């Protein structure tokens, strides 16, 4: 078999793993029904049975007042703005007060200035992970064949379970939805439920990155960013900031820049380029250069951009004081 034939056979094999499209089809039909203003019963049996007497499917349904008295949800999620100067920082809206033994937090991500909020916090211990997402509620829960309707602290929730993975999604207010995912535990469902019930408003936690864009080409929004602290391959702290993706009606590849400030670049050597007065490297849309403190700035452009643009973006990147971020690697 030639290499070409083998590659074709490999892709044909990948296609064997295609998920059943029925869940997507159902979601589209549901949205279409809502769009047309029809009253529709999703999960005609299940949800109606779970939410006794509640016919307004898709809306938050308070079943009973059984919320843990220590749990509070923010009535609204304040969307932080991109400040004019200084480090980029976002307050994290939610925290769990219960976590399985051993996990440590190494990921925080938050949007700034976006029309809708997106936040992520993740805790890991080897193959075990707990991830808490906060996002915009778009009018329906995750609907597929494995979804079970339940409640978290008296609020409508959707539960999806696999052998060692469990996900619970629930409405914390009419516009925001939380999602808790537990992986790698044999009792993931029970743990997920316990962690989800413990999730409450967080008044202290934040994520902060010491890098920010100085110059960006025209058309790239300067007031909408996503920032993140994530673990590198050796458990090091990676800082990341990305501009909002600029979609166009023609669906060209969206223009977007993401910048990492990392102990070690993940890119292979490329063409030498002078940037920030030092020799950097350019390879396939990624420009990297070592900062004076030994760490690396790595800029990636989603769409094709002239090298001169990438060089100017990196030249004008601003690096601020090292943020505390002392939550990294702790519970």
């Amino acid at each position, binding site marked *: *078999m030639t*290499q*070409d034939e*083998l*590659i*074709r*056979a*490999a*892709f*044909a*094999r*990948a*296609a064997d*793993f*295609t*998920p059943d*499209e029925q*869940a*997507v*089809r159902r*979601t*589209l039909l549901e*949205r*279409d029904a809502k*769009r047309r203003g029809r009253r529709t019963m999703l999960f005609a049996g299940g949800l109606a049975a779970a939410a006794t007497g509640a016919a307004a499917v898709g809306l938050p349904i308070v079943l009973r007042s059984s919320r843990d008295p220590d749990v509070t949800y923010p009535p609204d999620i304040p969307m932080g703005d991109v400040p004019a100067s200084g480090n980029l920082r976002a307050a994290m809206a939610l925290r769990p007060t219960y976590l399985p033994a051993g996990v440590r937090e190494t*990921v925080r*991500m938050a949007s700034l200035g976006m029309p809708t909020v997106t936040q*992520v916090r*993740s805790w*890991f211990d080897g193959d075990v*992970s707990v*991830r808490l997402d906060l996002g915009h509620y778009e009018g329906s829960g995750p609907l597929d064949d494995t979804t079970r309707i339940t409640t978290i602290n008296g609020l409508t929730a959707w539960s999806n379970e696999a052998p060692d993975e469990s996900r619970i999604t629930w409405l914390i207010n009419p516009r925001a939805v939380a999602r808790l995912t537990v*992986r790698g535990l044999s009792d993931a469902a029970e743990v997920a439920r316990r962690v989800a019930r413990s999730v409450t408003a967080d008044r202290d936690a934040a994520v902060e990155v010491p890098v920010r864009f100085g110059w960006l080409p025209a058309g790239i929004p300067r007031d909408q960013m*996503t920032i*993140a602290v*994530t673990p590198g391959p050796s458990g090091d702290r990676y800082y*990341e900031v*990305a501009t909002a*993706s600029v979609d166009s*009606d023609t*669906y*060209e*590849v*969206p223009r*977007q820049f*993401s910048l990492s400030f990392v102990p070690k670049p993940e890119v292979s050597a490329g063409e030498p380029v002078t940037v920030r007065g030092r020799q950097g490297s350019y390879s*396939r849309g990624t420009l990297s250069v070592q900062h004076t403190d030994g760490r690396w700035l790595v800029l*990636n452009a*989603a*769409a*094709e951009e002239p090298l001169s643009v990438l060089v100017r973006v990196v030249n004008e990147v601003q690096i601020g004081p090292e943020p505390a971020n002392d939550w990294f690697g702790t519970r």
Partner: protein
Amino acid sequence: MTFEEFVAARLAALMRYATVVTCDPPLAEDVVQDVMIRAQQRWDHIGALDKPEFYVKRMILNEFLSWRRRWAARVGQLHETLLPAVPDHAGLVDERDALLRQIAALPPRQRAVLALRYFDDRSDADIAALLGCSEATVRSHSSRALAALRASYAKEGELAR
């Protein structure tokens, strides 16, 4: 063609396409769902195009290649459900599966180029249009991907000896 007709006729094929491009079935489902929701909202425009499926495939590619998705991959959102390394009945890992794992490890753009060329039978010009880059860039992605696969294949062969 109405959106409902498009979904009825093409959704299964789009799911296969997304699965092959992403090498990650759960991600493929997420990507297709997000894209189809946006396509539904813009169907007045998309449905009037000459090749709505081509357009939707571009949306799927762009969604997959977007920074948000790549970030999600880094923090463990993705499932490594595709092809666990399990020996077949003869005690040998199937050659296709081994190659597919190597393909899944390629950078996303390189993987997308191979999927479009070998699964979707697209020309370099079509792939360039889908990815929004030049044909030279497509050829560069392709040659780098094939070189990486050859190197990886040779290394596996050495390890097996």
